[in-house]
């Protein structure tokens, strides 16, 4: 089962490698991992998408929380939350392909952020399912390049991951 782990970690050199190293050392799966500083520059926020049984994910969360630099950690699997991922996809856009791309962009509420005679760069935001669906809707020979940000998540309502 897919789980999202969100954590605050001291923004120090090597923080990312501590987390990444733990996952490889213990054989845990990482589907995506994103990290960036927060409004408090001394803290980074990391979102890890992992998969495994409930017992395995409980171990993953405990082991990650045990890292000395990890300040707080939550698992979003069961609590209400919003998750988003951003993708930029470079599409071949020649002739009829241009009109078809426009239609898809409109349906998926995406944006065209770069245009040339022969290409579009489309920005798609949403949960991972929506992004997968967009990619599935584009003929594969039209896709030149794909870059995905990985998932970020936040709890709904008053619940907050803060120090």
């Amino acid at each position, binding site marked *: 089962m897919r789980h999202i782990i969100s954590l605050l*970690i*001291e923004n120090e*050199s*090597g923080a990312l*490698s*501590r987390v990444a*190293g*733990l996952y490889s*050392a213990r054989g845990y799966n990482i589907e995506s991992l994103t990290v960036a500083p927060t409004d408090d520059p001394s803290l980074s926020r990391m979102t890890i998408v992992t998969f495994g049984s409930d*017992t395995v994910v*409980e*171990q993953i969360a*405990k*082991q990650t*929380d*045990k890292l*000395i*630099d*990890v*300040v707080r950690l939550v698992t979003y699997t069961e609590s209400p939350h919003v998750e988003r991922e951003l993708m930029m996809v470079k599409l071949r856009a020649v002739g009829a392909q241009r009109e078809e791309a426009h239609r898809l962009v409109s349906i998926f509420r995406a944006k065209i952020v770069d245009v040339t005679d022969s290409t579009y760069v489309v920005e798609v935001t949403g949960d991972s399912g929506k992004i997968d669906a967009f990619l599935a809707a584009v003929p594969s020979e039209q896709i030149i390049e794909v870059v995905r940000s990985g998932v970020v998540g936040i709890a709904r309502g008053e619940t907050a991951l803060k*120090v």
Partner: protein
Amino acid sequence: MELSGGEILFKCLEAEGVDYIFGYPGGAVLHIYDALYQQEAVKHILVRHEQGATHAADGYSRSTGKPGVCLVTSGPGATNAVTGLATAYTDSIPLVVITGQVPQAMIGTDAFQECDIIGISRPCVKHNFLVDSLENLATTIKKAFHIATTGRPGPVVIDIPKNLTDPKVKVPFHYPSEIEMRSYKPATAGIMGDVRRAVDLLLSAKKPMIYAGGGVILGESSTQLTALSRELGYPVTNTLMGLGCYPASDEQFVGMLGMHGTYESNMAMHECDVLLAVGARFDDRVTGQIDTFCPYARVIHIDVDPSNIAKNFPVEVPIVGNTAHVLDDMLAVLSETNRRPDSDALAQWWDQIKSWQSVDSYNYDRNSKLIKPQFVVEKYCELTKGEAYVTSDVGQHQMFAAQFYRFDHPRRWINSGGLGTMGFGLPAAMGVRFAHPDAEIACVTGEGSVQMCIQELSTCKQYDVAFNILNLNNGYLGMVRQWQEFTYESRYSNSYVDALPDFTKLVEAYGHVGMVIDKPGDVEGALREAIALKDRLCFLDFRIDTEENVYPMIEQGKGHHQMRLNPRRSEFV
């Protein structure tokens, strides 16, 4: 007061009450060694290899409860310390290991003796620090000791770039007496509701077992564990790491459990209905085949590390907290209730256990014309009245020491249980000696293990470190040979150590005393002589039965109730 980095380091160590550090100098730590030379509070023990430094600091720590401290140089100095770090990490031993690093401006340039010890050591330390400024040095050292010694203890590395110890650069010195870390707040007390549930469950047991591990020793809770066990009258088993946390001479003690534990402790684990696990981590050498582990038990697990709970085995009542604190709470709850264990059920349970005990699973041939390794350890235990500090290496001799030396006190049995590091015993005994100048100490080892750190005999000479080395010499890597006999049809692939040195001549060359003992009748005399020789290191080379096996044994894939017993057991008187 303005001090240089080197001076700050020793002021901090002094403030932490460090009396000995074990180390080896080199380019990146020359400034630090110069500062060391100019102070007296901290005594430095010059080892012969950095692995020896870490094991010595480890032995010092295990025998005292204080953190062990090492100082090594960058590059190979640091990488040589890695086995010692991993050893300490697996057994949760508090070490602070200071490594030199190339100057900050040269980091990342493949400089001479540069290596990324932060990266290399990351998976085998509790935490590590690359010091980024002289101003942060003292706080970093404070954090390192705090992290190493609290919660589930473990080793911490402090990597100090050379330019930060330049004697010409000084900053005001202040060593914080306390440290707060928002990211690190280890658990102390358990949740009281869980403690009450645990006591309820324990009192409802018909076939209870108490399974106590190294966490009881690390958590300084042997007294509480003993009090609780005696109050309940329940059988107690110890893991390899837990030996000594409950007195082995006590009649409630049913011996070690696991792969080479007693038949009675493993059978009792298999049949028990309530299991109290304290400071133990359900290691594979303890549980055997996990699917058949404790099939009838409802489990209570007390551990300071939440990630140990339900890692390998499901738990009904988890209690995260300091073992001493939680056991105190359990004793308090027990004293408030009138309920007591079901005495009829308990009497039946003990009858059952006694019938398993009558199998006498550790029995060996005491009439053999060859020296039996068990006999050497048994005799040494008798002569030292079970009061010695015993270190060991890894293999058959380690199991014989664990089976036949009766540890009545915590911190007397010092072995690499988790990582299984050959070469640990000799330097560890050296570390124990610095902590306990007058104690009786022995390193029980084998001719394979002892050669892995034998260079430390030279350190022992330099500092007049005296202890006894009981070398159970069978000419084989015994445990490897035993597994090859059992599971590879006796194809002894590379388990025979050809061209062994003449150990007596070797230890004499190092300035110590060597003896060869090859007859059972000479064992006691030799041991007495060695014990009496207080100020010399004695190496007793016991030429033992070459094909003796460690029994009983849970083989791979088998459960606690499927022990392999010595087939010749009934022939021994």
